[in-house]
């Protein structure tokens, strides 16, 4: 592929992404918390999703969840259930809803909402301890959520 061609493709992808992206305030959750369509308008990348789940500065999902398939990552938490086999228990739409705002699926859950930007008590500016201004940046972008969901969809019971 020529360099110019790659560039052209990237530009097209970005522009469609921007058009189809659903903003955090506009997400339509189903009665039980599911989200039917991609938040970014594009498919997710499972490899990137795995990284986001392990990275302390991003999803840091393993802080609370053990994930067998990520056992090369040290220190998995026990605050949430292990995510092994999660693709057998939930549909893609349900998983998207859980990652975007788990409180829509599990009322009152400890799990943070990763695609929510308003309605917090004493919201901070990141981890600075100083006041933040709503709407905050969501914890994960629309595309990062899609990446995580596409990785979760690979977690079948063997």
């Amino acid at each position, binding site marked *: 592929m020529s360099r110019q061609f790659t560039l052209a493709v990237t530009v097209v992808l970005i522009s469609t992404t921007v058009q189809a992206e659903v903003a955090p305030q506009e997400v339509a959750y189903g009665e039980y918390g599911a989200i039917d369509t991609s938040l970014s308008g594009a498919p997710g990348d499972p490899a990137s999703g795995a990284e986001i789940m392990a990275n*302390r500065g991003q999803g*840091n999902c*393993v*802080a*609370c969840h053990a994930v067998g398939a990520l056992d090369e990552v*040290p*220190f*998995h*938490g*026990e*605050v949430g259930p292990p995510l092994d086999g999660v693709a057998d228990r939930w549909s893609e739409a349900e998983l998207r809803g859980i990652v975007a705002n788990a409180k829509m699926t599990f009322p009152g859950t*400890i799990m*943070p*909402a990763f695609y929510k930007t308003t309605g*917090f*008590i*004493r*919201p*901070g*500016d*990141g*981890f*600075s*301890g*100083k*006041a*933040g201004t709503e709407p*905050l940046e969501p*914890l994960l972008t629309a595309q990062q959520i899609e990446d995580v969901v596409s990785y979760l969809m690979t977690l079948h019971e063997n």
Partner: protein
Amino acid sequence: GSAALATGAIAQEANLVIDGEIEIVTRAPAPDHMENVSEIVSGWEYRSPETQAVQMDDFENPGMIGVDNARADFSAAMGPDGQSCAACHDNPESLEGARAVYPKWDETKGEVQTLEMQVNECVTERAGAEAWNYTGTRMTEMIALISSVSRGLPVNVAIDGPAQPTWEQGKEIYYTRYGQLELACANCHEDNYDNMIRADHLSQGQINGFPTYRLKNGKLNAVHNRFKGCVRDTRAQTFAPGSPEFVALELYVASRGNGLSVEGPSVRN
């Protein structure tokens, strides 16, 4: 706590004995005012055997260096008349018992005072000197000294009478889900103690061991700085050390430890 659970907890032998002498109660039946927990447990129980061992010997415990510094400071002259703590309180041992009952209602001031506020009252109003920084080294070391002479005594802060509204305020803060992560103290330290959160073994967030010498930052840590760190970690705007909110929270959290021994300066990671 219910009576059935209480007997099991009391019958236990002390796990933590400092210098072969000071017996520390690290597990006790929960006080009656606690609704969701039957046994209260010191943070010491959740640390690794290596970290635990450091606290069992005062020569090994780096927090005791701060205690020694404060012991020297206790008789240092301050203010226009060259007052010192020792001029009014003889020796630190005369303050035995104080740590166990603070924060405490102060009749004259009409407010709940932490030990830091009491010390600063003595420094400014009695000695006429400048207030010490609430979480500064000098203050934290003095609090460590005052704690050390109460080690082994049961924490016993009063939550009724005039202190009650402050206690209620602290309780409300304890259960409020702050910040972008929408997490309350209770989510981690009541719902999930003994669980791992990434590499951290969650304790009940008790404060009977404060000030704590943390191996992580190599110094004595004041209780309000720990509160600040935990609130900051929820991606929230924190409260300031010494603020009315943290004073109330301290009273409430201290009361969740009524029955554990005073342990400070403790060792944590």
